[in-house]
């Protein structure tokens, strides 16, 4: 058989193509799931918290500006959830307890936002705060009644909520940290409690030092 250079060349070309394909497809070998890619891009783009109106477990109604000048530690959940949300909220409670008391309520507020406004009325939310010993002031649980506002927030923060049978939702979970100006500055793994608490405390300490 005659020697040809085409085939080795084609092989090199295919290899190069494969490498570029995987490089581009995974953002430089960094994101193999859409969730990682989502979190990376959120941290990079730092979206602003959109204008929404909350109704919390104490029946108070207020806009986002209620939290102006404070860091807000956020999770998204719904109270009927029996799988991941209780763990998410429990872990959130542990982060809450690891933040020094002097900051709580003054510099940082914890906020659990329900994306099931139909069922999560103030009474239900109040009951839910009880399960996690949330005081309803420094750790609030609230719903957003306006579906359009809720959707814009979920969209902006990349929360994917899929409704399925029995009124349950499948959704991705994370800890979100919004700064004093309402800018999303970090998205953290909700299973890494220590790491998240450390991150929050460092930010708060640096902020105090300035």
């Amino acid at each position: 058989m005659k020697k040809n250079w085409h085939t080795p060349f084609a092989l090199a070309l295919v290899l190069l193509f494969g490498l570029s394909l995987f490089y581009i497809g995974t953002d430089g070998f960094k994101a193999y799931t859409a969730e990682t890619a989502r979190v990376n891009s959120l941290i990079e783009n730092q979206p602003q918290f959109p204008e929404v109106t909350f109704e919390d477990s104490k029946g108070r109604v207020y806009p986002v500006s209620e939290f102006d000048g404070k860091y807000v530690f956020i999770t998204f959940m719904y109270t009927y959830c029996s799988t991941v949300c209780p763990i998410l909220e429990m872990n959130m409670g542990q982060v809450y307890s690891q933040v020094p008391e002097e900051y709580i309520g003054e510099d940082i507020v914890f906020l659990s936002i329900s994306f099931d406004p139909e069922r999560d009325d103030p009474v239900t939310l109040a009951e839910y705060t009880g399960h996690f010993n949330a005081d309803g002031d420094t750790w609030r649980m609230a719903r957003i009644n306006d579906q359009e506002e809720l959707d814009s927030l979920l969209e902006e923060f990349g929360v994917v909520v899929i409704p399925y049978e029995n009124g349950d939702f499948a959704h991705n979970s994370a800890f979100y940290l919004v700064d004093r100006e309402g800018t999303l500055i970090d998205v953290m793994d909700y299973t890494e409690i220590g790491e998240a608490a450390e991150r929050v405390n460092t930010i708060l300490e640096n902020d105090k030092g300035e």
Partner: protein
Amino acid sequence: MNQFTAGLFLLIFLALPPVANLLESIMVVHMHMQMPLLVIAGFLMAKLVQERFPVFFENWNSNGVPGILLFIIIMVYWMIPRTMDEALTVQSVAIFKYISLPFLAGIPLRDSWKKLGDKSKNALIISFTVMFFAMGLLYIMSPEQLCNNYLIIEQITLGWGFITMAACAVVYLIYSAVVDPSDYV
């Protein structure tokens, strides 16, 4: 109807929005039915392409290795959880799926397969078997939702789909190693 037309029809049929939406709504069907069918569409269309451009394939894929490598790359690419998600949410990725699977996997597979020796063929089947077992375990055991557009239960189903495919491949490998068809003629 010749093979090319059949393949082209299959590709067009699969790309029809209602068909695509239906197949993509179930994770395991998306990966183990729609994607292989796209490869098959390319496989069927390959014949005409080979006849039209025999010199091209002879020159550039003389031993079948570049072609089969391209096939492997495309297959592995579509096994990444993220690409499954983005095929649903990012249009350019969706279009790439309909182009890459038939034309960059189906066609090279057909051209390369005949050129490969028995050992290479078996090595390929064994690697895919191992990969399917690994992917199956990943999708079954992962505590996290790997694809944002699919539920965890679908992810587990997909995992078992992978394991089933791998088990079938093992049966085939044992069969081809142990049974000599000429004994039964």
